[in-house]
């Protein structure tokens, strides 16, 4: 086992406010690692520091043994880290299919000069396109997105939009996947389905998963380890059992 993602003393300050305070953790290959904590505990900020939307004020972030602190999000995406957002960041004027194809953008080769080869069915560009479509079809099948494939994402119900975003993140073939509150706003049935999928995804895509989640039932069902954050500080890291029974966690949640 080796650490796929490692945080060393990550701190993020906004002016005087310390949103994330000296957080260190290491996530092992193939692990499902959850981060819990009350609202405003700095969970999403921590994700933003990992994928490069924010730059950590102090500390460092390591992906597959390589330091990525301060790298731009698109560079980190190329290095194999993908994510979803709490408030959905979809291309709302594109269809499900187009959103997923954008996840393949990293691997695409179609430029102006090889356009003529698109017209010829066996041309390099056409082959390239076919390959990406196949990958996307696999994801559509896995996540049951068939009925939504040609619909604009802005017209889909919230729960389905979340799944499209998950699919798009998978399309980038990440080695580490960050899911920010994947179950928020889903109904009971959809939540059950999600637990199922997350396990499937881990197995089929050989991906390490970090999850921010409020739903304790979901968290305890799928996590290998859990970290509890409060006021930006890591209170405890351990197995689901250890964490939910930890007195500080109980205090933070129940007041």
């Amino acid at each position, binding site marked *: 086992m080796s650490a796929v993602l490692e945080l060393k003393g990550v701190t993020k300050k906004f002016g005087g406010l310390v949103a994330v305070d000296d957080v260190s953790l290491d996530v092992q290959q193939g692990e499902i690692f959850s981060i819990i904590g009350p609202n405003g505990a700095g969970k999403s900020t921590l994700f933003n520091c990992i*994928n490069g*939307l924010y730059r950590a004020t102090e500390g460092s972030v390591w992906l597959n043994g390589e330091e990525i602190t301060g790298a*731009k*999000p*698109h560079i980190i*995406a*190329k290095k194999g880290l*993908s*994510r979803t*957002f709490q*408030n*959905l*960041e*979809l*291309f*709302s*004027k*594109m269809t499900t299919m187009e959103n997923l*194809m*954008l*996840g393949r*953008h*990293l691997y*695409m*080769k*179609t*430029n*102006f000069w090889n*356009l003529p080869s*698109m017209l010829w069915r066996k041309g390099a560009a056409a082959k390239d396109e076919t390959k990406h479509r196949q990958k996307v079809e696999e994801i559509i099948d896995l996540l049951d997105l068939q009925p939504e494939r040609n619909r604009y994402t802005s017209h889909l119900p919230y729960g389905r939009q979340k799944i499209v975003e998950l699919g*798009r*993140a998978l399309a*980038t073939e990440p080695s580490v996947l960050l899911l920010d509150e994947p179950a928020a706003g889903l109904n009971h049935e959809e939540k059950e389905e999600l637990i199922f999928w997350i396990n499937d995804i881990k197995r089929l895509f050989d991906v390490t998963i970090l999850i921010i989640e409020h739903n304790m039932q979901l968290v305890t069902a799928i996590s290998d380890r859990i970290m509890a954050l409060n006021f930006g500080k890591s209170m405890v890291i351990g197995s689901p059992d250890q964490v939910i029974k930890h007195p500080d966690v109980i205090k933070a949640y129940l007041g």
Partner: protein
Amino acid sequence: MLGQLILSGIVAGSIYALVALAMSLTYKSSEVANFAQGEMAMFSTYIAFVMLASYQLPFWLAFIGSLVFAFFLGLFLHFGIIRRAKEPNVLNLLIITLGFQIFLYGLAGWKWGSEQRVLKLPISQTETVEIAGTTISQLNLATVIVALILMLLLFVLLKFTKLGLAIKATQQNETAAKINGIPTNRIVAITFGISSVIGAVAGIMLAPITTLDPNMMIEPMLKGFAAAVLGGFNSLVGVVAGAFLLGILENLFGFYVSTEFKSIVAFLIIVIVLYFKPSGLFGTHYVRKV
């Protein structure tokens, strides 16, 4: 007569369409209406003029040289100026582009003076071509053809290439584009470059019809902007349709009603359209969810 008027309208409309497309493209990627667009085109046209008149280069070389210059001018506006602004809001950015406009206008006036120059294209202005009972000068015909080719190229670029996909993605959702591996800053800078090139083509085609002087792009720029608003600023197809519509209506009004008020009618139409359809004729109004 009507056919002739419509044809002239289409000629004027194709220049408006280029300016409007240029503005709409950058607006969609940066949410800023670039008011320096016209002056950037004017400046690039001067570069073509200098290469033709002072260095005696062949026309095609000067044409391409001017477009390359325009592309880098666009990149410079974004990377060198707009990106440097600290936490700007839309109004700040708008003022930055206005400042850049005034800067270019002043620089052109200082370097080349306000006298009217002649930019000679290797296409005749006096010889005409007959199309379906109407006559059109070769230059005007070339203007329309060049504009249509440019629109086609832009369409192909946006629809079928990786760069085009990256541009659309950046325009729709910058954060999502970033996490899918798209270097959004570079993409926005490139759209500024492309817009600047489109503007420069409009300038070069227009210069022989009007004259080459620092004021040459002021009116076409305003009309192009107006056409873009008329068609719907966030729809490229709408913007082109708005431009042709404006060119034709303006010409019809000029002939049947009054030449004196020809320019004003454009803005009158816009006020009326926006009153009933605030997002333009073809634009879609959409509100970003918070």
